Each structure stands twice: as structure tokens, then as C-alpha cells.
């Protein structure tokens, strides 16, 4: 008796094609979202530009992020700090008006967080600032950004946009600089 599976395979062909198309579609949709909407540079409540402040006007980072050298967190400036300058400077621009409306209502500005580490990592700004690590080493060329963009440091030491920090990146820098206990688990995971 001559048995062939070809006829039954032929019957399956439309189903197989459907599966392939659906899978391709899923991957494409997923990739498209990741590529075009990475969420690594979200829109902020006020279009604050680091390029103007840190770049053109060369305001030092720690003028506003005052706690970076003292505390685990760098801190976001209080509304009153912004207002301190902008009572006088560029008062007519729409973004500054927006700032002043927050101030008039005595409301905080809900900045969207861009750089974040998981809760199980105990990162402290203080140590890195005191070790004279440039802010840009981790945060990328902030002084060129109009809107802040998630940036990390690639293996070759260059800034890597839209990519979150991963442990390997921390470690490679710790190794390069021969940080004391820099590869010890408990240094960061307490």
C-alpha cells in the first residue's frame, strides 16, 4: 500500500501560513513599538531644556542637583529654586509661565522619572561624585539634550542612548577603575 502524507500536509498549509503571518505580525508590532516609542525620553510637564541650562549657560549640574555630593539621590530642585532665577529671567516665555502657574498654585512639578535602577540596587550618587566621576559618564551628554533621554555607558566607554543601565556596565567601569570592593556583591546589593 502506498501511503503519502503529502495530501494531509497540503490541507495544513493554510493553517501554517496563518500561524507564520500572525507570528511575524506580533514580532513586527512589538519591534515597532520598541523602536519608535522606546519611552526613554518621555515628555515632561514643562519642556525644560538641559541644553540651554547646562550647555549654553554652563550652569554646573550641582547648582540644581545640590544633594548629589551628599546623598544617595541627586535630588530634583524645588520649585522655589527654579522660581529664584525665573522671577527675573525669560519671564515671558510660555514654559516659564507654566512654571509660574505651578508656583502660584504652590504645586510641585510632576517630573517624569527617566533614570531609574531597580530597588535591589543600592546606588549612591555621593560616592560617585566624591570619586570625581563626571555626571556625563553615566547620564550621557546631558548638556546637549533638550529633553532628557535615558542613556547608559557602552562597553567601549561611549554613551549608549535609549538603553537602561545593566549590571555588566557597572562592573566593567568598576573593573577599569579598580574600585575597592567594586565587584563585591554586597557593595551594591545590601
Amino acid at each position, binding site marked *: 500500500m502506498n501511503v503519502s502524507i503529502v495530501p494531509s500536509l497540503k490541507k495544513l498549509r*493554510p493553517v501554517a501560513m496563518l500561524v507564520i503571518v500572525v507570528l511575524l505580525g506580533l514580532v513586527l508590532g512589538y519591534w515597532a513599538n520598541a523602536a519608535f516609542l522606546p519611552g526613554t525620553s518621555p515628555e515632561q510637564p514643562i519642556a525644560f531644556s538641559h541644553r540651554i541650562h547646562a550647555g549654553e549657560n554652563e550652569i554646573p549640574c550641582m547648582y540644581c542637583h545640590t544633594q548629589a555630593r551628599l546623598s544617595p539621590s541627586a535630588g530634583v530642585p*524645588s520649585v522655589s529654586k527654579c522660581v529664584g532665577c525665573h522671577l527675573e529671567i525669560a519671564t515671558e516665555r510660555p514654559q516659564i509661565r507654566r512654571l509660574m502657574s505651578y508656583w502660584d498654585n504652590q504645586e510641585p512639578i510632576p517630573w517624569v*522619572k527617566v533614570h*531609574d535602577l531597580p530597588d535591589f540596587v543600592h546606588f549612591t550618587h555621593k560616592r560617585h561624585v566624591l570619586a570625581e566621576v563626571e555626571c556625563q559618564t553615566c547620564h550621557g551628554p546631558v548638556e546637549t539634550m533638550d529633553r532628557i533621554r535615558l542613556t547608559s555607558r557602552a562597553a567601549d566607554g561611549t554613551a549608549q542612548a535609549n538603553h537602561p543601565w545593566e549590571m555588566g556596565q557597572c562592573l566593567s567601569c568598576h573593573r577599569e577603575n579598580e574600585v575597592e570592593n567594586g565587584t563585591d556583591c554586597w557593595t551594591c546589593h545590601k
Partner: protein
Amino acid sequence: MPNIDRRDFLKLVGAGGVSVGAGFMLREANKDATEYLIPHVVAPEDFSSGLATWYNSVCSMCPAGCGISVRTREGLAKKIEGNPAHPVNQGGLCSLGQAGLQVLYNPDRLTGPLKQTSARGSGSFEQITWDEGLDQLGSRLDLLRAARRGNRVAMLTQGVRGHLAQLFDNFMRQLGSQRLLHYDFNHPHTLYAANQRFFGQDRLPYYDLHNTRMLLSFGADYLTNWISPVHHSLGFGESRQGSSNERGRFIQIEPRMSASGAAADEWLAAKPGTEGILALALANHIVSEGNYAGADRADWAVALTDYTPAKAAEQTGIPQSTITRLADSFIDIQPSLAIGGGAAANHSNGVDTLMAVNVLNYLAGNIGQEGGLLLNPEPTSVVSQQQQASYSTLLEFAEAARQGEIDVLILNGSNPVFTLPQASEFREALASIPLVVSLSSFLDETTAMADLILPSHTYLESWGDDFPEPGMGFPVGAVSQPVVSPLYNTRATGDIILALARQMNVGTALPWENMEECIKDGWRQIYERGDAQTLAQGFDSFWTSVLRAGVWGETAAGDSEFTLDRSVISNIGVQAPEFSGSEEDFPFILHPYLSPNFYDGRGANLPWMQERPDPMTSVVYGSWVEMNPSTAKELDLIEGDLVDIQSLHGTVRAPVYLYPAIMPNVVAMPIGQGHQEFGRYAKDRGVNPIEILSPEIEPITGQLASSATRVNIVPTGRRSKLVKTSGTSRDLGREIVQFADVNGVELSSAGSNSIPITEVTA
């Protein structure tokens, strides 16, 4: 290319489109939720995000008055530690003090003023505003004051010291009321009375456990709850392992082994209530052996004739040889110190017992000596020791209420419905008071009976100050400052009182805007009494330095010279204790002891304290009744058997716990559980042994003789499993416990399955 007809093609395109969309949404759904960085509008001066700020303050969880340092971050309290600069606790803090955070963050806190809407105790309350609440109470008070009927207003507060106590005093005086009652279940009335009679001072001396080499404790569980447990723990450690070469010896005499008994070198069980007789027998032996050379030697010999060791051995159940040995070592090992408290002080002969303990200190020359007992100087500060109300005083008050003499009762933190025996009928007396107002932060049993609740801040949110009693041989004060902003719509107790005063138009006598001002004003007077160096810095900098250090001390010292009034000697004597209930019907003596976790029950709403195993039994959560294994055998009971503990005045039901270190005719129960209210963690858990206590009193002080109740144990035939962390309390040949006798000969632990105790015939 296979043949695809138009229809199939369109189907595939459709499916492809849908799946692209699905893929897109899949990624969208997997994105982390947006987080925000919310800045301050105006940066506060005293904290930076990510950095801890520590505030020094005062612990209010028990009357010891330890200094605390609270770690705060972003304006929230995170951890409470002891303040290293405070002489009372020197950086130490007990578990109850640490659990103070759960008072602050307790989900059952009262978050705003409430008004009872139907019958009392029904638990139906409606929210009102502060103005309404203060108006309702204030107008009532104002009317009574104007009609010169201020004495119809009573205030019942938990023991309060410092300027808040003064404020209460002042307020009640303006009202024209003498009915200001401070009440704590554990207040040592008998100790105050005994010291007043012996030393002529209405304050406690400083017991120098740090430097003593020989401590005789008659029932005082000094490591857990006697006066200032954290300070005593430090002293215990110093005496045992401190700078001296000689290790301190600790001897504990009590019917049921407490944590202090477990830590002692020797634990002895005298028959309950005979501790004073034992102390006098020791004194008798000291005098008769010629170990006391004072001029009043002959007087003592006469006063103590009835208390020979032989006679005391019969009365106390402690062998004569042990009595004479203790008496000899109390003289031989110097410095020595005798203390008394706990159950020994809570009998009908409590004051006499503690007088007898003072006799021992007197005869051994321990008074005014380092390592003995140091008399505290007269408090120079404006803030004097508050007068605590005794059980009898509360009974009088309840009677006055029943007679319709009380119109308004203001409660502050005190929970008498829980901490008074049912025999006092206090709860019933409350019904005769037309307006009951509570300033408590929690809905405890008494607050549940209130018509109006004006909830106070917790101690971590309020201004206050404290002057620990006893002093440390010199006066100590500490300011309690708010470490966080108030979490809810509550107010500081002092602020409520000041607002009421304004409403009554007696603001001129109480001129302060708020409690902070009142405290600051009071401390200005302390500052003005200071020496030249203090005055040179100016008040503001003095105030800042007190707040920063969290504590302030003066260098005055008490009299080291002490002359005993001769009339004291002839009045020395200890009667046999009286118990309520006949020995036939109620064969056991109930030994209620303060739980190391809950103090007098005020810690029962803190989950940390509920979870903490009891140090002696390792039981968590519930209540239990401890009995000697031999007693249990006689009654045919094993661990976990539910029994009814019956007294003349009530019955409670609890599971049996076999406790080898308790006298066979004594059963013990921890106090603290058995709340009917007081939040989700405390409610309906265990039983409250205070309920069934007989209203027996110590006649001199009117204190409740809480150890004088006889009970019967009735098996119910039911069982419940005790939740405890330890498996068995027996060694079972594991050689966990090694025994060595005094000559250094090793003994095997095998066969030593229980702690040997002095056998006593019931």
C-alpha cells in the same frame, strides 16, 4: 508560490494586521509604569531627600522616660533608637520603645474628632470638626465654671510628668476642680510609701545596680518592668561583666521565675507575700551575728526579735541555712543592694515588705553608698512628681460618679476599663456621667464608652518634656519634640487643653498659644536658674542645644548623709499576707505579671509586640496560664488544655503552659492581652487576668493588692494549641544546658530535666 485566492489573501492580511497591533500592545503593556519625581515646592531646611535626619526626643511607651533618637527620611519616621546621651538608657532601648513606630503608623489610629451617635459602647461614631468638638466640651466646662461647679469636672489621665502635668494642674485649678487623677496600673505606690516612711522623701532613690556586687531582689523584675528596665539592664551588664574584676551576684526571690530570675545566679521561691518576713529574718541574723555596729543596734535587736531565721523558715518555706547564708553574704560582699517590687509589693503587706527591704539596706550600710542606694536631691525643677491616684482613689471617684457628682469626665490615654478589675464596677460607673470625653489616640475600651473623642497626636508628633523619676542621683530633664508632621487631623493634648482654656476665658492663666510655647516658656525658667556659663550662651542657643542633645542634667547631688528616724525602727514588722477566697475553694494563688511585651496592655495593639515571643515561655499572640508540672499532673492536665481560672470575682479561660519554675500552689498569667477594643491587633486575643482580681487593697496606700487573689483551676476538657517558638523546654539528654557546682566539679546535664525549685507545701 502556492495558490492563494483573493479571499484567503485578504484573510491573511487581516490576521497580520491584527497581530501587529497585538504585538504593539503587548510591548506597551510590558512597559514599566511611569514614575514621577515630585520635588518640594519650597525645600525644607532640615532634610534632604535620600538622607536621614535624626531627632532626639523622649519615649512615652512606659513611665521610665528613656531618651530616643528617631531616624527620619523625607519627613517620615523610620526607626527609633535609644539616645546615647541620655543618662537613663544611654543608647539602649527596649522592644516596646522600638515599636513606638507602630503607634505612629497604626492603621487603627483615630484620625479626627468623633461623636457617639447612639448608645455608649455601640461603636457608632460620626465625624465632626474640631470646632464642633471643642465647642461642645468647652461650652459645658464654661457653664460649670461660671456656676462654680467646676468640681463636677474630672480628668483621668495616664501618668504624665513635665509641663503637660503642670498644664493639667493649672487648667483644673482654673476650672475649680480637685479631680485630676493620674492613673497607671503599674505605679509603685507601695514603693513610694515605704521610701517616704523610711527616708522621709516623697521620691524614689536611685538604685545603683551598675556598681553593686550583690543584689537581693525581692520580687522586682528589674530587667523587664520594674521602674526603669533599660537602665537596670545596663546596670546588670556592667555589674556582671563591667570594669570591676569581681562579678556581681544577683539573687532573685519570687514565686514565679521572671526574666530577671532567669538571669540571676540564684532563684528562690518564698511563699507569696512572705518576702518581707524573709527580709526581716535576714536583718535579724545580721544584727544577732553582730554584723551591724550602729548606735541603734539595741533598738533593732528588739524590733527584730520575732523574725528569727528559724521562724521565718517555717513561714516563708526557705530553709534556715539559706536564710543565714544570704544574710552573711549580704554583709560580706560589698557593695550590696536590696530592692523590692513586683508581686512582693502588691500584697496586703506591700509597704511593710518594702520597708523590710530598706531595713536590709540600712543595716548593711548601703544608703548613700556607690553600689547601694543613692538618695535623690529635691527636684529643683519647677516640675514636680505627679500624684498618682491609687485604686482606692479611683473607687472613690467611681462612687462619686454613681452619686451623680460628676458631670464631665475627660480621659487622656488612661484605660481604666481595661486596667481595673471588674469588681471595681468602673465601667458601670461611667454610665452615670453625662459627658465622657476622651483625648486618646486609639479606640481603647474606655474611649469606646466616650460620647466625644478629641484624638491627640502620638508622642512622636507632639511637643512635651519629661523629668524621669527616679532621677539618676541628679536631676535629669528631656524635651520631647515632634519628629514628623502630624499624620492625621489630630491635635496635641496640650493644645486641646489650651484651646479649652481660651474657650472658658481663662486664657490669662494659661497664656500660651500652643504647647511648644508653653514648654519653651517653662524651659526658659530652667535656663534662668542655670550657672554663669549657661546664661552666657543666651536662651536661644541653650534651647537649641537641649533639643539637639535631647537631654539636660543638673549637677546637684542628693544627701549622702542619712539619719533614720528612731520611730521607724519600732514600727518595723510584716504581717502575713491576706488573700481573697478560702484555701479550700480556691487552692491556687494567682500571680498576674506585666507582660514584657505589652506593659499594662498598652502595647497590645502593636503587631511587632504581638509577634515577639514571650522571653520565658516563647509563646506568641495569646494568653496562657503557667503552672508547675507537678500541679498539672495532679490535675491531669497537659500543655494546651483549656482551663477556667475562677476567682471570687470572675472567670477567665486560658490554655495551660507547664512552667517548671513556679511554685506548685501558684499559677501565673501575663497581663496585657484580652482587649475587647483597641484595634484589630489587640481585639479578641487572649484574656485579661485583671478582670478577675479581687478588690483586695494594700491599706496604707490604697493600691490594689493584685497578687492577693486566690483562684481555682477547672479543666474544661477542651484543648487549644499554644503558638510558641520553642519545641520542648526539656534538655532530653541533648546537653544544651551544662551544670557545674560551686566547687567547679562538672555535673552531667542528664537527668536534670527541670529547674530544681524550693518545694513548698501548699
